[in-house]
C-alpha cells in the first residue's frame, strides 16, 4: 500500500536545516549544540514515526522532482531503507553527544565545519536510505562522499590531506562506477525506480527513446559495475585502501565512516542492487552472487588478517570494519530469507559494536593521547566503564552469545546452510576466531598489564554514548522477538522482500 507522505523529505530536511543553521550561527557554542542535538532527536522522532505504519505494510512515497522524463528525485520508505535510516539516526544522536564532548577543545571554526558537514552527511545517509530510485541513491551517495571529505581532512595536516585525497580518489572512482551502472540500468530497464522485484528482471523494456534486449553478459557487466562501485565504500577487499588511511580523522568522523554512514551506505547500495535492481529471481538464475560471496569471503578473512597485523588501535578497528562489513555482502549474496534478515540486521549489529569501539578509542586518545595498542597497558583499570563497553563490543564481534554479533554469526551460518554452502559457514566460524585473536589481546592488555601513566577522565559526554552503545549491543542480541525492535524490523523487511518473490 503506497501512501504519499512528506515525512521522508522532512527527515532529510531536518538534517539539512541543521547543517544550514550550524553554518550560519554555529560560532556560538550553545546554538551549535542546540541545533545538532535538536535535529538529531527530531529526526529520530520523524524516522521512528514511520516505523509502525511501515511494519503494517505501508510504503511511504514522495516524489520530489523529475528532471529528464522518468528520471527524478524521489523518496520511498520501505522497511529495509527504514531500518538503515533508523540505525543511522540513532547513531547520530550518540555521535552528536560524543562529538560535543570530543570536540570541546577545538577552534570554533573547526567545530562549525565539523557539525555542519556532519549533519550534511547524515542528511545524505537518510537520502540514501529513503531513495526511491537508483538516481536518488546515487545523488546522495555522492553527496555523502563530498560532505565526508571535509571531515576526513578535519585536522588539515599533510597526512589528513593525503588521506582525504585518497578517500576522494577511491570513492569518486566508485561513484563513477555506480554512475556507469546507473546509465546501464536505465538503458536496460528504462526505469530506475525501486519497489518492484528487480528492475532488470522484466527483461527488455522500452526506454524513453527505445531500449534493447538484455543478455547475460550485459547483466553481468551491470552487476559487476554496480557491486564494485558500491563496494568501494563498503571497503570490499581490493578496494578497501581508503578506509585505514581515513583513520587520521577525529574519532566522531571515524564513527561516521564506519558505523553511521559511509561504509554502510556502500553495503546498503549493494543490498539495493541485489534485492531491488536485479531481484532475487533473476539473480538466482544468474549465479553472479557466487562471485560476490567469494569477494566477501576474501574481505572477511583478509580484513581480519590485516587487522591482526596492526599495532595502532584505530587502524586495527579500520581493518576490522573491512572484515565485518563484508558479512553483509556475504549474507546478501546467499539469496535466502534467513540470510536476507541478517544482511539487513548486521547493518545495526556492526554499527553499534563498531561505534562503541571507536568511541572508546577516541576517549583513550582524548584522555591520554595513546593510540597504539601496546600503550594500552592497564587502561581498563583507569577507564573501567569504557573498557567494559569495549569488551562487550569485542565479544560481540567474536560472536559470544547474547550479544549482537552472535545473532549475525548464527544467522549467516544458518543462511549458508540453507544455501547449501557450508564452506561459508566455516568462514564465519573462522572469522569469529580471528576476531578473538586480535581483539582479546587488546582487552587482555587493558586489564592484565600493569597500569602505565595517567589518563584524564573522559567525562560523561564521552562515557555516556559509549555505555549506551554497548547497551545497544546487548539489546540487539537479546531482543529478537520484540515487535518494533530492530530484529523484527529486519525480519519483516526480509519477509516483504521474499513475499514479493513468492507472488
Amino acid at each position, binding site marked *: 500500500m503506497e501512501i504519499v507522505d512528506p515525512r521522508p523529505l522532512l527527515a532529510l530536511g531536518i538534517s539539512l536545516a541543521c547543517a544550514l543553521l550550524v553554518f550560519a550561527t554555529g560560532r556560538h557554542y550553545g546554538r551549535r549544540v542546540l541545533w545538532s542535538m535538536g535535529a538529531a532527536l527530531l529526526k529520530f522522532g520523524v524516522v521512528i514515526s514511520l516505523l509502525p505504519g511501515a511494519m503494517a505494510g505501508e510504503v511511504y512515497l514522495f516524489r520530489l522532482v523529475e*528532471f*529528464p522524463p522518468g528520471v527524478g*528525485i524521489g523518496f520511498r520508505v520501505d522497511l529495509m531503507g527504514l531500518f538503515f535510516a533508523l540505525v543511522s539516526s540513532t547513531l547520530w544522536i550518540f555521535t552528536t553527544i560524543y562529538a560535543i564532548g570530543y570536540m570541546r577543545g577545538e577552534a570554533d571554526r573547526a567545530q562549525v565545519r565539523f557539525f555542519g558537514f556532519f549533519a550534511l552527511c547524515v542528511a545524505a545517509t537518510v537520502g540514501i536510505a529513503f531513495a526511491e530510485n537508483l538516481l536518488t541513491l546515487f545523488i546522495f551517495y555522492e553527496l555523502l562522499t563530498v560532505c565526508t571529505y571535509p571531515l576526513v581532512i578535519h585536522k588539515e595536516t599533510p597526512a589528513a590531506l593525503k588521506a582525504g585525497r585518497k578517500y576522494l580518489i577511491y570513492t569518486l572512482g566508485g561513484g*563513477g562506477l555506480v554512475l*556507469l551502472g546507473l546509465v546501464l540500468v536505465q538503458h536496460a530497464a528504462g526505469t530506475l525506480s525501486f519497489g518492484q522485484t528487480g528492475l532488470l528482471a522484466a527483461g527488455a523494456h522500452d526506454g524513453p527513446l*527505445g531500449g*534493447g534486449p538484455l543478455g547475460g553478459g550485459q547483466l553481468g557487466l551491470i552487476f559487476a559495475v554496480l557491486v564494485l562501485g558500491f563496494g568501494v565504500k563498503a571497503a570490499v577487499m581490493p578496494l578497501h585502501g581508503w578506509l585505514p588511511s581515513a583513520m587520521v580523522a577525529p574519532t566522531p568522523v571515524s564513527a561516521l565512516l564506519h558505523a553511521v554512514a559511509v561504509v554502510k551506505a556502500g553495503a546498503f547500495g549493494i543490498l539495493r542492487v541485489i534485492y531491488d535492481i536485479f531481484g532475487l529471481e533473476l539473480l538466482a538464475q544468474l549465479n553472479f552472487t557466487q562471485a560476490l560471496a567469494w569477494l566477501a569471503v576474501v574481505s572477511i578473512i583478509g580484513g581480519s588478517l590485516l587487522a591482526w597485523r596492526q599495532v595502532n588501535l584505530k587502524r586495527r578497528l579500520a581493518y576490522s570494519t573491512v572484515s565485518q562489513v563484508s558479512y553483509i555482502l556475504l549474507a546478501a549474496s546467499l539469496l535466502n530469507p534467513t540470510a536476507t534478515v541478517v544482511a539487513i540486521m548486521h547493518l545495526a549489529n556492526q554499527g553499534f559494536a563498531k561505534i562503541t569501539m571507536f568511541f572508546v578509542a577516541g576517549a583513550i586518545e582524548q584522555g591520554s593521547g595513546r593510540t597504539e595498542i601496546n600503550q594500552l597497558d592497564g587502561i581498563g583499570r583507569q577507564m573501567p566503564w569504557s573498557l567494559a563497553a569495549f569488551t562487550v563490543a569485542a565479544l560481540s564481534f567474536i560472536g559470544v552469545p547474547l550479544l549482537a554479533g552472535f545473532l549475525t554469526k548464527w544467522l549467516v551460518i544458518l543462511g549458508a546452510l540453507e544455501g547449501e554452502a557450508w564452506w561459508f559457514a566455516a568462514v564465519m566460524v573462522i572469522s569469529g576466531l580471528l576476531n578473538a585473536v586480535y581483539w582479546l589481546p587488546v582487552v587482555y592488555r587493558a586489564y592484565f598489564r600493569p597500569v602505565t601513566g595517567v589518563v584524564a577522565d573522559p567525562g560523561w559526554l564521552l562515557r555516556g554514548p559509549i555505555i549506551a552503545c554497548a547497551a545497544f549491543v546487548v539489546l540487539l542480541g537479546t531482543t529478537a522477538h520484540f515487535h518494533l525492535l530492530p530484529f523484527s524490523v529486519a525480519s519483516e523487511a526480509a519477509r516483504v522482500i521474499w513475499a514479493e518473490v513468492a507472488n
Partner: protein
Amino acid sequence: MAAALTVSWSALAAWPHWLIVLILLPLGGAVLTPALYALQRRLVPWWALLVAGLTALTVLPLLWRLAHEGPFSYLPGGWARPYGVELRFDEFAALLAAAVALLAPPVLLFSRRYAARAVPAGRLPFYYTLLLLNLGGLLGLAITADLFNLFVFLEVVSLSAYALVAVGGRPVAELAAFKYLLMGAISSLLILLAVGILFALTGSLNMADVAQRLPALATPAALTLAAAALLVGFMLKAALFPLHNWLPEAHASAPGAVSAVLSGLVVKAGIIGLVRTYQLFAGVELLDTANLGAILVWLGAASVVMGSFFAVFQHDLKLMLAYSTITNIGYIVMGWALASPQAMLGASLHLFNHALIKTTLFLAAGALIYRTGLRTLEELRGIGRTMPLNCAALALGALAIVGVPPTAGFVGKWFIALGALQAGRPFFALVVVFGALLAAVYYVRIINAFYFREPEQKAVVTAREVPWSMLAPVLLLALLCLGIGLLARLPVEFLEPAVARLLDGRS
C-alpha cells in the same frame, strides 16, 4: 485568465518579424554604442545591458512559436527560397539563441564593474560593441539557413572574439589572440572552400535546398572534401581535440566576462556548424556518414579524456576551466556523432547547459581575479572564507560541470551515456563516466584549495565579496545551474521531436 494570456501570447508570437528583430537588436545596439559613448560614456554599460535584455525578451515569442508551430522561416527581402537568404528558427537555433538570451544580460551586468577595471579605459566602448556584435553574430549564425550567410555571421563572431581576447591588453592575451586568429582564419577558409564546392556542385546556397540536391550527385570525392572541410573547419572553431590547442590560452588570458562568452557560447558556433553539416549530408548515401561519425565519436572521446587530463595538471584556475571546455565540447561532439536519439538529445541539452555552467564558472573566476588579482589555485587558497558567496557559486558550478545530479550538467551527460548504450557502443558510456570522474578530480582540487586550505596571500585574506552588480549575476547563474537541471524535462520534451526529425531525415 490563462486562456487570455495564451491568446495574447500567440498573437504576440505571430508577429512575423521577431526573427529579424532578434539579430537586429544586438547588432544595431552594437553599431550605436561607440556613438553613444561619445555622447554619454557612463550610459554605455547600461545601454549594452538594455540591448541584451531586449534581445533576451525577443527570444521568448520565438520560443513560444517554435514550441507551438515547429520551425519557421523568415525571408529577408521577401525573396523565395532558394533565391534569397533564408532565416530559419529550428530547435538547434533555439538552443543557442536561448543560451545567448539567458547569458548575455548577466555577462553584461557583470561587465559593468569588471570591465571598468580589466579593460583599458579607451577601449571600453569597443569592448561593449564587440560583445554585442559577438552575441548578435552568434544569433545570426544560429538562425541563418544559408551557407554563405552562415560564413558571414561566423566571421562577425570570430573577428569580435579575436579582438575580445586581446581587449584586456595583457601581452599573453595578444599572442593568444593572434594564435586564435590564425587558426580561426584557416578554419573560416576551409568553411568557405566547402561552401564554394557545394555551390559549384548544386548551384545553391540555401541549406535545405543544398541538402535536397546533394543526394542526387555522383561525385564522392568532392562531397567528401566538402564534408571534411566543413567538419575540420567547425572542429577548429569548436576546439575539438586535436585541433584544440589555440583554446586554452585564448580563453584563459581573456578578461573573465569574455572568457565566459567565448567558452560558453562562441565555441558553440562550431557545434552549430557541425549540426548544420550533419543536416546537409544526412541524406547523402554516397558519403559514408557512418565513417565520418565514427571519426568524430573518437575525436569527441579523445577530447573528453585529453581535456580533462590536461586540466588536472593546471594550476591556473582559468586554464583549468578552459581545458574543461575542450572536455565538454568533446561530450557534445561525441553525443552528436553517436547519432542515436538519446545521444543527440543529450548533446543538444549539453550544448545549452554547458554554456550556462561555463559562464557561471568563468564569471565567478573573474570575480576572484577582480578582487585579488591572483589566478592560480595555490595563490587563491582559502578564498572561500573571504568570498564565500562567490566561491559557493563557483562550487555549485563545479558540481554542475562534473555532472552531479540534479544539476544542469547531469542531464546532458546522462542522455549521452544512455545514447552510447542505445547505439550499442558502451565504451563511450564509459568515456562519459570516466570524463566525469576526471572532472571531479580537478574540480575537487579547486574546492579543496578554496575551502580547506589556509590562506597564504595577503590579497586573499583581505578580499571581500565583489559588488552586487557582479555578485548577483554570478549567483543567479549558479542557481540556474541547479534550476535548469531540475527542470530538465522541459527542454527534453522540446528537443525530442527535433532529434527524431533529424534522424528521420537521415533514414
